[in-house]
């Protein structure tokens, strides 16, 4: 019960950041841009839009909820109170996932409204939430390791390469150990392409997302404890 209370203590930060920082504006712009792209695409892909909404929204939300220097410094103050690094990490992750979920829901509702395919839109929303959860956890670990620079790199990776399966473009590289290493890394890393299966009940994709949530949160917890000791 205490853990839940400590986790939920982080939740009000989302409202504050949505209203008082550019997070709200960026999420609105992201939603608008994704919907515009879907509308003008030669072959509309509501699932791809929901996945991009979840992934990119999660990165933006984490950057504004946890990645700034002030936020990292403030961990020292926060952890001087009766909470734990785990509760703080889980709470921020939940808040960031919640922020990304707003974009996912907006895109899914839009696709259900325009296409009438409610079941497909529901699946897309689930996949979007799965990718948002996985990416939020990973980005949280990244920003508490290297700040918002890493969040920026993560955003670029997801925006440019995240939706393309690695076999579609890694084949152009030279064969050999390097190719194998890159291919393996890309297969293991979270990306929108990886979670398309969640929309149709692919358990493997859901487990992959859950694994990245766990790994990301474990690293984020460890980093939060270290940052808290350093900044306190």
């Amino acid at each position, binding site marked *: 019960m205490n853990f839940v209370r400590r986790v939920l203590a982080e939740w009000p930060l989302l409202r504050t950041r949505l209203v008082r920082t550019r997070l709200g504006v960026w999420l609105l712009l992201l939603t608008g841009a994704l919907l515009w792209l879907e509308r003008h695409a030669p072959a509309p892909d509501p699932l791809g839009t929901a996945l991009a909404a979840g992934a990119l929204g999660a990165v933006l939300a984490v950057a504004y909820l946890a990645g700034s220097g002030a936020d990292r410094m403030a961990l*020292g103050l926060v952890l*001087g*109170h009766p909470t734990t690094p785990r509760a703080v990490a889980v709470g921020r992750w939940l808040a960031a996932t919640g922020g990304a979920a707003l974009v996912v829901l907006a895109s899914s509702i839009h696709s259900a409204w325009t296409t009438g395919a409610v079941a497909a839109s529901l699946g897309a929303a689930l996949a979007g939430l799965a990718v948002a959860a996985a990416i939020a956890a990973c980005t949280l670990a990244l920003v508490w390791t290297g700040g918002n620079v890493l969040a920026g790199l993560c955003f670029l990776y997801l925006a440019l390469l995240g939706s393309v399966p690695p076999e579609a473009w890694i084949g152009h590289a030279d064969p050999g150990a390097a190719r194998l290493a890159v291919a393996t890394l890309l297969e293991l890393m979270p990306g929108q392409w990886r979670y398309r299966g969640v929309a149709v009940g692919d358990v493997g994709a859901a487990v992959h997302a859950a694994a990245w949530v766990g790994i990301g949160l474990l690293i984020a917890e460890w980093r939060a404890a270290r940052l808290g000791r350093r900044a306190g």
Partner: protein
Amino acid sequence: MTILLQVRGVRRAFRRGWGRPPVVAVAEASFELGAGEIACLVGADGAGKTTLLRLAAGLEQPDAGVIRIAGGPPHGVAARRMIGFAPREAAFPPACTVREVLHYLASCQATGRVRIALVQEALDLSGLGAAGERRAATLPLAETRRLLLAQAALGGRRVLLLDEPFAGLDAITRRDVGERLVRLAGSGAAVLVSSSDPVGLERVVDRVLVLRAGRLAHSAPAAALLGGRVLEVILDAPPPEPPPGFRLTATGLETDLGRGTAEAALALCRAHRLAVRATRVRLRTLDEAMLEPDEVTAR
């Protein structure tokens, strides 16, 4: 008196890299602090004050020695309920108002009306009532120090560890914050403040701990350490060399009276043909205690 903070033989050194000897930040520090006591940890910058406070707050692990908060270790959530720590540098969650920062931190302890009451209590005891809706990140220094005090005292913490709570404050705010600390101690909290510039804190503190290069040079009740009398002599023309036992000041001379009398000291001045314009006997100050030769007294 209940002992709330116990520090026994604590040592902390920091490594500086391969082949270089570690820097000893705190060496063999031992002291106790009881409920209702205010202790001032004085020393120059780099003396080890912040490290000692962080050790007491459980933010650092000592290399040797033991720290107890109300009989328990200073780590974990239970200890966090007892310890209120205010760092020297403020870093509040961005974009939040003062009230939101306190609500956020109070959420770790309570919900609903209890949380609202905790926040209001913290605002009142720190004197921040009027600044509740201002952004925490843009507060002036005096209000920032008050917010650091408010968050440290939030929820009735029993051991308050405040790192330089008076740094950069004007005289009026210093006095006000000092009075608020006295009120907190009056409610049963043990308060340990650090200061590298302890001007005017004599009226606030019960106990003085002087740190010098990581070593506890003095640890004594304020009444004992600051009880010594100092004779200040204002001269028409200060001499190039002071008489034996005297120090030169901007306006003349001064000397610790110890067991001697002011008359005897003045007679020495006259014997040196010094034209005395005025004299004053005062008690010693905390800055003078900082400069005293080492001597650690009981408790």
